């Protein structure tokens, strides 16, 4: 304990624990265990990052220096620089954002909240606006807006881990999966007077217009009508001369050809679901301090290496 006043009683015992290399070793294993437990977290964030990662790291700042007070001046210097870098990175990590979680966004349906861990439990946190995600050829297009207030938008690539800032949030695509709820009907439309069929995909609540002015609207969808008749769509066909509302079934493709009266023979080929997008969300913040912290840690490690190589060279010279 060079440079420190002598300690007695419980202070000496406490210092012995802090300065023991076994304490630093134990904190390292705590950090490893904590990081391992976070690898497969459901919410896309470490479920206990404070206790599992940040607390042992913060304690390491002190124990690393304390355990090197009796080491050589060079080793103590680089241990102190590394500890300073670690402390800076921890503060930088806090500044760089937090409140991480995941938002489930399904096609046309916007969401206003996302799941995150609060006090060890999964809770819904408000995004402050409606988040809408749309799968496009270029990636996932995100829009955050509340009525006429447009807060931000971004396009996330389908492959990769990159985040994009949307409003005050940093978002990334965490998962893309097939949705559970039926979202649109695939229709094969053939003129009743004869001709080539046309294929259309129409969402629930929207309509498709044909050249002759006929409008076909998808009113409702069912993945298994009455739990007996399979996938079905309730269609409203508006044509010159009348309106026809009826259920169409995937398992009965010739039904409309036999009993329909509209100018178009409608065949329901599939009831499909929208992809379900899981978007990782966290509060965005500046990352400069965190990067600077990691930079200082790198400098400390490089300095340690330079000292070791210098010592090795002088040892060889002496031999």
């Amino acid at each position: 304990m060079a440079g420190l006043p002598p300690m007695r009683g419980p202070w000496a015992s406490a210092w012995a624990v802090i300065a023991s290399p076994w304490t630093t070793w134990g904190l390292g294993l705590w950090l490893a265990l904590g990081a391992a437990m976070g690898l497969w977290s459901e919410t896309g964030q470490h479920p206990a990052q404070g206790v599992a990662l940040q607390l042992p790291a913060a304690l390491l700042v002190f124990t690393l220096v304390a355990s090197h007070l009796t080491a050589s001046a060079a080793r103590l210097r680089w241990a102190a620089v590394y500890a300073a870098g670690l402390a800076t990175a921890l503060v930088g990590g806090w500044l760089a954002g937090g409140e991480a979680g995941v938002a489930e966004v399904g096609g046309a349906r916007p969401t206003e909240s996302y799941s995150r861990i609060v006090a060890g439990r999964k809770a819904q946190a408000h995004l402050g606006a409606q988040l809408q995600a749309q799968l496009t050829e270029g990636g996932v297009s995100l829009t955050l807006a509340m009525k006429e207030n447009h807060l931000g938008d971004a396009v996330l690539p389908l492959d990769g881990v990159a985040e994009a800032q949307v409003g005050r949030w940093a978002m990334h695509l965490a998962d893309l999966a097939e949705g559970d709820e039926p979202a649109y009907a695939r229709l094969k439309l053939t003129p009743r007077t004869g001709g080539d069929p046309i294929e259309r995909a129409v969402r629930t609540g929207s309509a498709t217009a044909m050249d002759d002015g006929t409008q076909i609207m998808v009113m409702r969808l069912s993945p298994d009508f009455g739990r007996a008749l399979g996938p079905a769509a309730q269609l409203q066909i508006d044509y010159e001369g009348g309106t026809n509302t009826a259920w169409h079934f995937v398992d009965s493709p010739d039904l409309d050809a036999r009993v329909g009266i509209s100018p178009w023979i409608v065949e329901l080929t599939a009831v499909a679901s929208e992809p379900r997008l899981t978007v990782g969300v966290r509060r965005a913040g500046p990352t400069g301090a965190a990067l600077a912290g990691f930079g200082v840690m790198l400098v400390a490690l490089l300095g340690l290496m330079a000292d070791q190589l210098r010592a090795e060279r002088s040892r060889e010279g002496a031999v």
Partner: protein
Amino acid sequence: MSAAVWVALVGALLPFVGGLFSSADQARTWRASAGLAAGLIAALVWISTPPVGALGHPITAEATDAAGAPVSSVVVLQRDGGRRQVRRLPLRQPVDGAVFALWAALGLGLLGAGLQLRKADVGPRGFAPALPLLGAGAAAAVFAGASGAASGEAGVRAYLERFEVGAVQSFTVPDLPWSAQPEGTLALVVAAALAGLALLSALIPQALDRRWRILLSPSRGAIVASAAVIWRMIEVGGLPWRGVEGALWAVAALLAIAGFERASALRRSTLVAAAFALAAAALAG
């Protein structure tokens, strides 16, 4: 998987290379830690495969198509009383004997580590370091052997035959062929490779030049792993506390702590073993 995780894994491997090919006493400690790392990787793979169950609980692998999308089949079942049920069934490949293999890998890894830490040799030379290789190698073989590829109607039929689903009226067939690779296969291959390196160092003991050993020390590994963290930050465009980023960060910190450790080869090598196991587990994360 991000290339940054591979870089961190290389960072954690460097000190093992330096330690395994050093003086006889130190190499023995490092071989023990290699066995520990192989066992830890098996344990982490077991923890990572939901649901974590009892010994007999099967591990299953999700089937994905060439684009990496999960594959499922919509199955129509005929129930009692003429009732029909329509179910979307994600296609999953059970990995027979996987949990037994992982437990064996964990047990043999720890046993091998324990025997290495004894002063006297048990059995012929290379016996103790061969145990972790046997465990991790067998687990990797079980996982790799389960990666079944299938396609078309026959593939779905073969899958459905595994269950007592009753009368199947009809099912849909995925458009593309699919295959199922259990998560953790790569991590187990990495564990087996490390255990193999440890066995090699026991069979062909070779002390590296001192300068090489300095270049292959834990703090050099920490430099590589810290570079991986910075790379990942730039790749992501920020510093989130997601699982993989947290693991990368912890790997770099563990290697640095090991690098600053002065007195004990055991403390140094166990920290590197934990870092290596964490980096390997991040491959499956």
